[in-house]
C-alpha cells in the first residue's frame, strides 16, 4: 500500500504542477515554495477523501498516468510539458464525466490552495489594477469609505 500511495501521490503532484496558473507572476523561488505548498495541500486532500472514494481515485490516477502510453508511448509523468498539457486538456474536455471530474477535483484544489496562499494573496493585492475607465475605489476596506 505504501508503494501504491507513493505512486498515486507522485501522479497527483505531476498534475498539480501542470495546473498551476501563471498569474500572478511570482519570483522563481517564491513560485517553487508556493508550488510545494500547493502540492502538499492537494495530496493531503486526496488522502483525506472518504475511504470508499480514495481507492477508486487512486486507481483513476494510475489510469490517467498509464493511458498516456497509448498515445505517446510514455506515461504522463514522463511526457514533456506541451504533451502533458495537451493530455490534461484531453481529459478536461472528455465526453466521459468521470475523466472530467478526475481533473476537476485536482484543478479545484490546486486553484484554491494557490490563490489563497499568503504569497500569492500578497502578490495579488500588490498587482491590483485600476478598474476600466479609472473608476475610483469606493471602499478600500469593509467598514471604511
Amino acid at each position, binding site marked *: 500500500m505504501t508503494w501504491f500511495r507513493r505512486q498515486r501521490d507522485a501522479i497527483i503532484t505531476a498534475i498539480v504542477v501542470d495546473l498551476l496558473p501563471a498569474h500572478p507572476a511570482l519570483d522563481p523561488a517564491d513560485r517553487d515554495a508556493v508550488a510545494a505548498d500547493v502540492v502538499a495541500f492537494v495530496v493531503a486532500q486526496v488522502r483525506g477523501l472518504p475511504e*470508499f472514494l480514495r481507492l477508486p481515485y487512486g486507481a483513476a490516477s494510475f489510469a490517467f498516468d498509464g493511458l498516456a502510453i497509448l498515445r505517446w508511448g510514455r506515461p504522463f509523468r514522463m511526457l514533456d510539458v506541451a504533451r502533458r498539457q495537451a493530455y490534461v486538456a484531453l481529459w478536461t474536455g472528455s465526453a466521459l464525466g468521470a475523466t472530467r471530474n478526475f481533473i*476537476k477535483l485536482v484543478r479545484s484544489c490546486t486553484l484554491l490552495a494557490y*490563490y489563497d496562499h499568503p504569497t500569492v494573496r500578497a502578490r495579488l493585492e500588490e498587482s491590483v489594477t485600476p478598474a476600466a475607465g479609472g*473608476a475610483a475605489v469606493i471602499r478600500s476596506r469593509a467598514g471604511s469609505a
Partner: protein
Amino acid sequence: MSALATASLPSELTTEVLVIGSGAGGAATAMALAEEGYEVLVLEEGPDTDTTRIASNSIAAIGKLYRNGGMTPMLGTQSIAFVEGRCVGGSTEINSGFWHRVPPEAYDRWRTEALLADFTPEIMEPYFDRLERDLSVSFMRPEDIPRSSELFRAGIERMGWQYVEVPRCQRDAGNQFAPGAKQSMQRTYIPRALAAGARLVADAKATALTHESGRVRSVEVVVGSGPARRRCSIRAEKVFLACGAIQTPALLRRSGITRNVGDSLQTHPMIKAAALFDDEIEAHDAALPVYQVKQFWPNITMGGAVFTPGFLAMLLAESWDAYGHAMRDWNRMALYYAGTRGMGHGTVRAIRGVEDGVVIRYRLSQADHHHLRLGLSRLTEVLFAAGATAVYPALSGAPILRSAEQGRGLLTQPLPLTSMGLSTVHAFSSCPMGENPDRCATDSFGKVRGFRNLWINDASLIPDSPGLNPQGTTMAIALRNAERFMDGDRRAISPARRASAARPELLVTGAPGWLGTRLVEMLEQGALGPAFRGKTVRCLVRPSDDESVIRRVAPGADLAAGDLGDARSLDAFCRGAEGATLVHVAGLVHPARFTRDFARVNVEGTRNLLAAAERTGVRRVVVVSSNSPVGCNPSPGHVFDERSPYDPYMGYGRSKAAMERLVHEAQERGRIETVIVRPPWFYGPHQPPRQTLFFTMIKNGRFPVLGDGTQRRSMAYVDNICQGLALAAESPRANGETYWIADERPYSIDEIVTTVSEVLESFGFRCAPAPLRLPAVVGETARVVDGLLQAVGLYHQKIHVLGEMHRSIACSIAKAQAELGYAPRVSLRAGMAASVEWCLANGQQI
C-alpha cells in the same frame, strides 16, 4: 479549552449521560444537562482545535476543521459537494453563523405530516429568545455591511423584490471570519458545559452502539489516530446522538438500528455565480454578505457567498479555459448563490467493515432542477441590475454572461444537471422526529423508537426542509428536547442532584444483583432492625444494569450510575457520604469467558472503591467476600473459621483473597473502618437463572451427586446474610474483623438435594426418585480441566462448579454468633421453600 486529554481516557469508562458530537445540537444538549447537575461526557470525533486563532475560511481551516478536507460528495445524477465541520464545536466553527427561526408555516406542516407533538410557536419562541441572547444574535452595524452586499441590495431593490437582512451569531460585528468573532459553540455552550462539570474528549469517534432489549449497553469508541490509536468502551445510562444529519444515521445503521434511519435526508442544493463589477469591491477583506432575496422563497433563495480569491478560482474552475482570465479582475468580483429548498430524496448508508464508510446519496427532483435553473437565471438578472458587467455561472462549458437577457436565456436552453457545479452546507431530516411511525425515527422529543435510553438531538430530527439555515432550528429543538428529557427524568435517577439533596447513610454496591437486591429490599422494608429504619440508601448501578428491579423493591433508594472500573463515578457515588457505611456486595463469581475479569472486578474494582471511600470520608466499609479464599476443607469433618489460612480455589478464590488483602491494607491505613463478611453458597429470592437451573436439575434427577453424597456444604439464605451484613455494619466490635456468615450448620449434599426435592414436591412438582450419582473422579477430572482452562485464562462455569462438587466447603459461624449476636433465623427447608415460591411468582421456569 479544558478538554479531557485523550491519553487519560481509560479503556472502559462510565458516565450518566453520553453526548456524541459537540456541534450545535450536542453542545446545547451537554450545556443544558450539565447545568442541571447531570454527569455529562461529550465525545467529539474531530480535533480540539482552538478556532479563536484560525479564520474559518482559510486553507489551514480546511485541513483541520472540515470533514474529508471539505470534499464529501452527495452522490446522484449530479454530485453535490457537501461541507461540514469535524472539530470541537462541529459545523458552527466553519459556517456563516446565519440565524433563522422556524418559519411559521413549518410548524403546521410538521404537526400535520410528521405528527409532531408539542411543537408550536408559543412553545418554541422562548427557546429562540434564550438562544439569541446566549449567542449574541445580532444585525451587522450599517457601516460594516460589505460593498458586495450593498450592491446586491441595490440590485434587489431595482428588481422590486422582497429581501431580508439576516442576523448572525456574532460579537462586535466586523469581519465574520476574523478569528473569534463568531459565537460558535467553542465560545458559548461548550465552555458553559465544561464549567458545569461536563467532560469533553476530542479525537474520539463512536464506531458502534452495543444494545440489547431496547437499551444501549455501551458505546464503542476509537480514540486518537496513527500509532496512538486505540479502542475503548463507554457505558452510559443515557446516550444522546448529536453527530449531525450524516454521522448520526451512519452510527445508528452501523449499529443495526435502521427503522426510518437515514432514509429521508434533505438538503439545500445551491449553485453559485461570480459577478464582475466596474468598481473594486475587496470582497476578500469584507464581512459575509447579509442580504437574502425572499421573493421566491421557499423554492428559491439568493444571497452573497463567502469570498476569497481561492474560492473564486474554484468556481471559475468549472470552465477554467473560458473563465480563468477573470482572476486578473479578482478584486472587482464577488460570489453569490441561488439555493433551492430541496425537494429531492436522500439516503445515508454505512458501509459495513469500513470504519468511515458512509455513502450519501441525494437524488435531485425535477423541481430542484427547475428551481436551480430558475434561481441561476434570476440571480443573473439581479446581478446585472446591481451593476455587474459580467456573470460567471458555475456551469461547465457555459459562456460568460454579458447581460440580463443572456441570463434569462438560461431558461430556454438545455441546462443538464450534470453541467451544474452544486454544493451545500446544510443537511438535515435524516432521522425525523414525530409520532408518525411510518416516517419518523424518534418520538416527538428525539427518543429513538424502541429504545429506553437513546436519543437523537441534532439536525437529523428536523422533519423536512425548512428552506433556510437550520442552525437556529436545530439548537431550539435540542434545548426543548433536553428539557423534556429532564422533566421526564425527574422521577428517575439523577445521582449528582440527589446527592446534593440527601446525604446517604448507607451505600450499597451490587444492588441489582441477587444479594444486593434483597439487601436493599430488606432495608426498605425495615426488616434489618431499628438501627436501619429510615436510613437513606444510595445504590451503585452500572449503566448496563436493569435498575427497574431495584426501583420496584426499594423505590426510596437513590440510584447512582457508575462502575467499579471508573474511579470518577465512584467518587460521585460516595460524594456527600461522610460518616456513612458502605456495603460492598458487587463482585464477579462467574465471568462470561475470561478469568482476567476476576481481577478487574474483584480486585481493581475494590481497590477503586476503597480509595473513593477514603477520599470522601465514608466511615465503614463492609466487604462481601467468599469461602473461596480458603478453598475446600482438608478433611471431611473439618470446618473453616476466621483463622483458617488462605488457600484460594482457582481464579475466583485468588481474586477474593487479593481483595481481602486490599481491605486489610485499608484497615491499616486507618482512614476507614473495614469488616469482611464471608458467605458461602447462598440461596433465596431474586436468585439468578443458574440457581433455578439447580432446582430444575434436582426435579429431573439430573443434578450430579458426586461420590457418596456425604461431603458437606455450608449454605447461606440471603436473609441470613443480610442480617449478618447489618450487624457487621453496626457493631463497633466488628471493626477490622472477618466473619463467616452462613446458615446455622453445614449440610451434606444428600441433605441439600433431598430437602430441595421435598420442597419442590410440596409445591406440586413431581421429582425424579433419585439424583444422578457419579463417582468422585468425575469431579476430580472436572477440577483438573478447570485448572487447565484457567491456566490459559479461560473460564467455563459448569466445569468449574462440577470441579468442586465432590469436596466439602463447611464453615463455623461461631465468631459471628459470639461477637455480633448473629442468629440465622431461616432454616434450609424454609429458605428453599421461599426460593421456590419466589421463582414461581416471578415467572422462572423450574
